[in-house]
């Protein structure tokens, strides 16, 4: 699912560039006065990752950071993992990353978009405090829309309350 959204993200950016950021034609068969099916058709899952960054690190070199329920404060192990991530960034000074904040499925979806952003930004601030150039790090939120694991247990929720670090 992470890969899926990442794939879409990259593809959407690629397609967006290809078409000048505009949207495609509206769907066929939309009746008069109806809302047509929005432009782009399904891009398909495979082949969406471009892998065109041409660097020696990948997203897998970064550690995922986890949070408590409805919290964006960094736990001790989260700080340790962020120091690790900062070290990777120091060693690869060309790499830019996107921090993607995520929430578990509980709570309101809209609130979780904002909470996910808080989680992404708290990690970004920590990296910047460790000397990483803020321009190398962007923060976005997927709210509860990109769970790492399915399921409705505390174990599943705990793995979904996280920041992913993705090489751009």
């Amino acid at each position, binding site marked *: 699912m992470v890969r899926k959204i990442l794939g879409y993200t*990259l593809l959407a950016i690629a397609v967006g560039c290809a078409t000048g950021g505009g949207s495609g034609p509206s769907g066929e068969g939309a009746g008069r006065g109806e809302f047509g099916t929005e432009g782009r058709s399904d891009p398909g899952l495979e082949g969406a990752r471009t892998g065109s960054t041409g660097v020696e690190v990948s997203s897998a070199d970064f550690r995922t950071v986890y949070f408590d329920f409805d919290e964006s404060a960094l736990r001790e192990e989260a700080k340790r993992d962020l120091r690790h991530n900062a070290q990777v960034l120091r060693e690869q000074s060309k790499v830019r990353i996107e921090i993607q904040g995520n929430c578990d499925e509980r709570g309101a979806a809209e*609130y979780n*978009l904002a909470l996910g952003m*808080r989680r992404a930004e708290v990690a970004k601030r920590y990296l910047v405090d460790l000397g990483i150039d803020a321009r190398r790090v962007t923060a*976005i939120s997927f709210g509860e*829309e*990109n769970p790492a694991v399915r399921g409705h247990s505390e174990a599943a929720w705990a793995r979904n309350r996280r920041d992913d670090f993705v090489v751009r």
Partner: protein
Amino acid sequence: MRRVFWLASLVLALQARAEDRLHVDVHGSGGRDYQVAVQRFSAGEGALEFPGPFYEELTRGLAFSSVFKVVDPEAFLEPRETRDFEARVIPCDNWRAIGADALVQGRLERKQGRLRARFQVWDVLRCRRQGDRQYFEDAPEALRALAHRVADEIVYRFSGRRGVSATQIAFISDRTGNKEVYMMEADGSNRRRVTGNGSVNLFPGWSADGATLVYTSLREGRFDLLTLARGRRPAGPLLTAPDQKYRGVWHPHDGTLALTMHRDGNTDLYTVRKSGRKLRRLTTSRSIENSPTWAPDGKQIAFVSDRSGSPQLYVKDLKSGEERRLTYRGPYNASPAWSPNGSWIVFSAQTGSNFDLYLIDPETGYTTPLVVHPRGDEDAAWSPDGRKIVFSSSRRGRRELYQIDLDGRNLRRVTSGFGNCTNPAWSPWLD
């Protein structure tokens, strides 16, 4: 109910009035619904195939109102079809005898390729016509919408509030594996997909005229607001600012949009004109502010903030800028939706690890549950007449859409076997 009906009739009869309509509070009287008998419409030349399906849709629309119960035609002492649409009198005794309060008669005609539905409504208790004969017309393919418009007008004539069977509900379903925007009739029929970007789409919302949808989409890799207009125009972004935007909600009359946006390290409420200009920041605290909902006069906005340490409801007066806290109970209150007449805000409140729906009076703070026991209800939205609320619930496992009347009656499931359905948004009246 019958006595209330008579009393109201009497009161109205004593009043000089421009409009010959009853304004009976159907709910809360402890009585029954109006019983409406519908004589199948007669057909003119070229319209012979329509009365059957038209009857089905008309009676569905009437039953959907929660104002009427449709009398089984098996019970009729009179013909099942409209025989003499022009008649000036009807045998009211024969309709009263089977318990009918109202009688609907009509005729379907073909006029220059259009289908015309002429109809009249009788108040059989007073044995007089309730309002004038009237007609609506539309393309023959739009028979369902045509019948529902007639139903909604009949509801208006008896209750003073137009019915909503001809309105639509936008919502999100993940049935393709991705969350896309869908549309359906108010009763849940005729579902069709509106977006197909294969990304994540959330929170559809209607413009005041029903001509444009705004929704939140991850299409370009980060959450942004897109608008989609009726017709074949493609969806496009509303604001060019690169900031993430989480939800847009249109003003009840003018083209202003209230939105939740992340900017300068904080999620706050903003308003912006439909043109994307005149962006104005409404909230400035370091907390999360989101979920705006307009008061029906557009002068206040209710929203969610965690400035107290947990998500709670607040109301902001747009003119004075004053903000006041509305909810104090419970660890997590969210997703407010202001009713069309302003009397209530419906919201979801955490109970245990789930949410239930509650109503709060925005003036007094008086709070009462909408649905008492079943857990897992969220995302409430009002019908344009304020009689019904549509919401999503996981009470049966998957998240599906349900409707309920404001007084807690007539709970019904609207979707099933359609993936997980969330974020319902009820359209305004569309004509």
